[in-house]
């Protein structure tokens, strides 16, 4: 399981890096989305009971209940998903407006603020 997840995370990070380095704003944003998914999966693997021993849950006898997953990482991922969802919505709106203002989707055309 952890191998599969590792491959998936690697693929997401690799794809994200490729997309972020493209010149198109839309692809850049797609890259950001992939990256946030990759990080969410990465956090997910961190909670694996196999890796760290027991989840922070115990029953009356002081033993971790069978089949319980670590709830904390899921809470973290939930928070991260909500935050990245909001940010992606904002970035999409910003890209739309900047496309209207600059008339281009090419990052090379968006360099007026960097020129001397």
């Amino acid at each position, binding site marked *: 399981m952890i191998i599969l997840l590792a491959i998936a995370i690697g693929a997401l990070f690799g794809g994200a890096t490729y997309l972020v380095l493209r010149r198109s704003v839309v692809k850049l944003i797609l890259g*950001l989305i992939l990256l946030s998914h990759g*990080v969410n999966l990465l956090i997910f693997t961190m909670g694996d009971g196999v890796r760290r021993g027991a989840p922070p849950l115990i029953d009356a006898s002081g033993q971790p209940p069978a089949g319980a997953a670590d709830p904390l990482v899921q809470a973290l991922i939930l928070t991260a998903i909500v935050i990245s969802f909001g940010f992606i919505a904002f970035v999409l709106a910003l890209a739309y407006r900047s496309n209207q203002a600059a008339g281009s989707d090419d990052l090379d055309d968006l360099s007026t*603020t960097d020129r001397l």
Partner: protein
Amino acid sequence: MVFHLFIPIITPMIGGALAVLFNRQRVVARAIALISVLINLGYGLWLMSVVPATGPLVAQGSGWLAPFGISLVADGMSALMVMLAALLMLTTIIYSFYSIDEQREHHFYYPLLLLLLLGVSGAFLTGDLFNLYVWFEVLLVASFGLITLGGSRDQLEGGLKYVVLNLLGSTAFLAGCGLVYGFAGTLNMAHIAERMATLANPGLQTVLAGILLFAFGSKAAIVPLFFWLPSSYHTPPVAVTAIFSGLMTKVGVYALYRTFGLLFQNELATYGPWIILLAGLTMVIGVLGAVAQMNVRRILSFHIISQIGYSVMGLGLASAAGLAAGLVFTAHVMIVKMALFFIGGAAEQIYGTGDLKKMGGLARREPLLALFWFLGILSLAGIPPLSGFIGKLILLQVGVSQQAYLITAVAAGTSILTFFSMLKIWNEVFWKKSYDDVNRLPRVPLGLLAPGAALVVLSVALGLLAGPLVDYNAIAGQQAFDRNVYITAVCGADGCEAVYRAALK
């Protein structure tokens, strides 16, 4: 348990909500913003008067036991930063009264400022790594709103770069946060610090520290992660640029201090020389970038980067004295940098442009503005008896006492370049003859002059009466570098691990 630690978080939150509600009544919205910030400032000052004597104050969110719930911790460094954030926000709000157009005020300008203060105060006070991430996102989303508010082409272009590169930095922080949890099994900073000291596998710790160095380094705009800053900071209104220069990068510096002072103190031996190298490069590349520019705010933006190098140098020296010196310098540069942005921005507002070639002759027309600008650049360059001199002197003393001669020399040399580059603005804007008739220009309103002038006066005062500030920061540096004090304050004398084990039984 001291629940009043929630005050600097709750006040801007409620203030922001009220300011949204009374958005159409301009006077009410302004009053709400002003009152919220004044409460935070008063509380910050009180905190600074208490914390050196009592040690770190701790509040547990919802009364949860320490390593399980979210803790708020105010040690000397946090208290100083909370106070400075409120002070700088106060001057920004006053400056905004006279410089922000009605359109922006109607589109939630003051609520966004309060939201920024909320995020910054939360980041300074939290004692939980994931909570720190959440506060970073709060202040980021407020800054996104502020930098794009208005929607001119420059703002949208600069804003896009700012947003994307900051999101990448945040994502790296989130990944680091998750990995730290996977490694240490906890997110409470005190508990992580404790486990980092006992857990083996130093190689993995080095990697984790490196990821967080990247994440916070990109927030603090150290070389080579600074590119978002000079391409976006000159696009929004002056007041927004000023508050960004005072707070945004400094939150990154604070997070670096906290991460390496508390969580990864063992790794400072590995990373110290690299941080010193990055600090030196940041100083030099920042100031050289400024030399090439011909626009007031873009020159000042590059100087932000250069000054960050000094703050980071304090961390790279890897000692309590180094952190203390870095804190003195950071406090100084937050104040003076904002003063320069306010005064340069006032000049920009008079001319309607920040282009140095089109400005000139302002010293004759506005002698007071020129006087405070000149005092400001003297302070930034580090001329005695201003606060910049004290800040740099202490930093250089620590550098020499720890035999870090090269970085000390670079830091001293950069001061000269800083002064040279600032003199360029002085010559072009204030000293040279104007091609146009300066008497036709509008006079600078008192409201645009006063915030910058007040901060310059504060800088002079801090230079002349440096004793209390230096003493305070010596204690703050010790607290920030002493893990045991922090852990004892958060979890009790036995440490977090003991509480954790006892709770599991």
